[in-house]
Each structure stands twice: as structure tokens, then as C-alpha cells.
């Protein structure tokens, strides 16, 4: 009995002590490395989220309607205010903000154009990656010169575009927008009913956001920041 216990004790003395400290130091190293990794990842994630102005949890909150997995829009060309034919492909690499209206528009269009101007001011340096285009749904009265003078009074970088009814329907239909001429008063001439939303296309020409009428320039700028590269 005593011998056995002695031998077993001696065995323990010989075998156990040396590996035990090894295991604990290794274990401690693993623990430290994994804690460090997890903490580092968490910290990095929090910093990235905060620097982007996003909430800590969940996807970024948009003010506009987000279009999920959007297909690229079919290309369109219209006459721009510089007199040239310009197509959607000319704006690849920029966020394109499209608004449909007309210069005779009495109420909705100037209000939205002012918000778009505010949006550009709010964006600051990021505004160079954003192109605002107002497409006139009144090609009869809105000549390129008139349209150009109208849009640049809001912001010199704004472009106006217009085209034939066929060209315009090709753009508006796929953006969920309608327009229709109807009689106004003798003072105003005819008026045009049109959807008052603002459409945002990303740098690949995909429709990503739709702002309802009344979205402020600040809210639009905040949403565009999430889409900027």
C-alpha cells in the first residue's frame, strides 16, 4: 500500500508538474489572443459605424424608400441644357439625382429644387460625386436655354434635360413616374401633373432610393452619404 502510493506519488511528481504550467500558459495565450481579436473587431466595427454616422445596430436608416437589389436602368439619352445629347452612361461613377418637373411649374418643382440645392450645400465636398438632373416633362415650352437658366439659378452644377414624349416615357415609366398635360387657367396656360418624387441612381445606374415630396435637403444628403463610395 505505502509503496504503491509512494510510487504513484513519485510518478505524479515526475509527470504532472512539468506539463501543467505549459498547458495553462498556452491556454492563457489562446484566451488573450481570442479576447484581443474579439475586442479589436468590436472596437473597429464601432469606430467604422460611428465614423459613418450610422446607428450602432441594424442597417443604416434611410429617409427615402430603399429599392432592394435593383436592376440597372435601361440607358436613355435626352437633350441636355448645353444643347448636346447626353445619356445616363455619361454619368457613370457619380450618384445621379433625377427630378421630373417643368419650369412653368407653379409650386411643387421650385420647392423641391430648393431642397436639392440645400442637399448639395449639406454634402459639401461630397457634392462633386453627385449630379442633379432635372428632366423637363414639358418639352414644348422648355427649350434647353430656358431650362438651363432655370436649373442653374438653384445650383450652377445642376443640369436640365428633355426630349420627345417617346424619350420621356422611356425614362419615367421605369422610374415609376407618370406625367400628363391638362388645361390650366388662361393666366398659367396648360399645366402638367407629374409624380413629385426624387429618384437616386447609384454610380452603376441602378435606382437605389426614392424620396417622397417634402423630404428635406438635410435628410436627402444624409441618405446620399450612405451611397457614396
Amino acid at each position, binding site marked *: 500500500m505505502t509503496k504503491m502510493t509512494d510510487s504513484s506519488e513519485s510518478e505524479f511528481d515526475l509527470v504532472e508538474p512539468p506539463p501543467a504550467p505549459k498547458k495553462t500558459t498556452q491556454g492563457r495565450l489562446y484566451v488573450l489572443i481570442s479576447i484581443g481579436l474579439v475586442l479589436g473587431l468590436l472596437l473597429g466595427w464601432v469606430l467604422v459605424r460611428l465614423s459613418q454616422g450610422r446607428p450602432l445596430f441594424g442597417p443604416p436608416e434611410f429617409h427615402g424608400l430603399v429599392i432592394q437589389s435593383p*436592376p440597372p436602368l435601361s440607358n436613355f439619352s435626352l437633350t441636355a441644357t448645353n444643347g448636346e445629347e447626353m445619356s445616363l452612361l455619361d454619368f457613370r461613377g457619380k450618384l445621379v439625382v433625377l427630378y421630373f418637373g417643368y419650369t412653368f411649374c407653379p409650386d411643387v418643382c421650385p420647392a423641391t429644387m430648393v431642397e436639392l440645392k440645400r442637399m448639395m450645400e449639406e454634402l459639401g465636398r461630397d457634392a462633386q460625386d453627385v449630379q442633379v438632373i432635372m428632366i423637363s416633362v414639358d418639352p414644348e415650352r422648355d427649350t434647353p436655354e430656358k431650362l438651363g437658366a432655370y436649373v442653374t439659378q438653384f445650383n450652377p452644377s445642376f443640369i436640365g434635360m428633355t426630349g420627345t414624349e417617346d424619350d420621356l416615357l422611356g425614362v419615367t415609366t421605369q422610374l415609376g413616374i407618370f406625367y400628363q398635360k391638362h388645361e390650366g387657367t388662361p393666366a398659367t396656360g396648360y399645366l402638367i401633373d407629374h409624380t413629385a418624387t426624387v429618384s437616386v441612381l447609384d454610380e452603376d445606374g441602378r435606382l437605389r432610393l426614392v424620396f417622397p415630396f417634402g423630404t428635406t435637403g438635410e435628410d436627402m444628403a444624409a441618405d446620399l452619404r450612405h451611397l457614396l463610395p
Partner: protein
Amino acid sequence: MNPLGNLTAKPEAPKLQRKVRLSFPVILFSVLGLLTLGLFAFVTIRPIQVLPRITLGPGYFLTDANGEAVTNEDFRGSLVLYNFTYLNCQAPCPETTGVMQEVQARLDEIDTAGIPVRLVTISFDPARDTPAALQTAAATLHADPEVWTFLTGAPERLKWLIGGGFSVFYEERQPGEFRFDPAFMLVDGAGILRAEYRTAAPDVDRILRDMRLVTEEVRNRQGVANYAYDAAHLFLCYPR
């Protein structure tokens, strides 16, 4: 609580610790494993099913059977099932119209959570399908004017809407005789296309189930369920 229980429990605890060392990596990997398993179960069992958000539905300005203007914005907030036809049609139209009639008759079978469901039939033959003709057709089909709307408009606008917007083929072969691909389109209250049925005789049960899924999503999207629904969209948890 029980001193005996404490005595019996105490010797067991170290035994367990010896068998499975609850070290940090073990906890980390088991949590990760459980998360992966949970995700896998979510994707395969699909407790939440959603309809894909295919694309933005097209915009249009058309005229109804009363001669009044109707635009896509008039249906904002409602779930709309569209189909495309012409009144003098012989071949696939009785079938497609029958589908619309059956959907109208069975709408009360589904709980739409207060979201109005509308049916819209668009005629691509405006020369013959005048508002008056549409009115007679609606009456013979027993269309409920609160639910089922008949629309038509200028030929160019119809072509852009049906051909360009919904990608549905139609062509006038001879005056008053069209060839077309029968199709039904489901557009939600935000104007987003949620389902396409490109056949003359889609399963009405399926259409009703899809309507139920869309309205259920609108009703249930609150708080944490929002994330669950977003996950369902992300992992394509579509009904089979």
C-alpha cells in the same frame, strides 16, 4: 437549498469541469457553432417566408371606365394584381378573366390586415375598348367597382407601360386582333413589383397565398421582427 443536494452536487461539479473544460475558446466556438446552426435552420426551415422585392413597378397615367384619370399613385397603399387583355379577345382571355373573377370572389378568404387589395385590368386596344365598352364588360363580369378597375389609354403610353414597364409582349396582328403573352403582376403598396405570373392560368391559391405573405409582412414588421424580415429577404426565404 437542500443541504444533501448541495453535498451531492458539489463533488459532481469538478468532475464535469475535468471532462469538458469551459475555457474561453470552447465557449467561443460553441456560440459560433450554435449561431451557424441557427442560421442554417432559419434558411432551410424558413419560419418567415417573404416575396422577393423584384423591382419598382412602372408609372402610368391612364383612363378608367368612367373616363376618369387613374395613375399608379392612386394605388399607393394598396396591393394590386394587374392583368393585360383586350375585350374582343377569343383565345386565352376567358381563362385570364376567369382568374381575375376567382380572385375577386375569394378575396375574403385571406386576412389582409386592413390593406386594400385591388384588381386592375388594362386593355391594350384603346381604339375599340372605349370607357363605355369597358363599363359594359365590367358589368357582365360582375366586377365590384370598389375592387376591380378597368383601364386603357393612348397606344404609345400603353406600349411603354405594358411592354416597357412590365415586360409583357403584345402586338396588333390585324386591326382588332392582338397576339400577346398572358401575364399577371402583383405590385405592393409601396409600388414595388412582388410577383409575376406569366401564364394564362396561374394557380389562384398561389396568388392568394402571395397576397397574404405581402400583407403579413406589412403587419408584422415591427421592432425585432424587422430584422427577422430583413434576414428573410437577405437569405431569399421565398415560398416554394
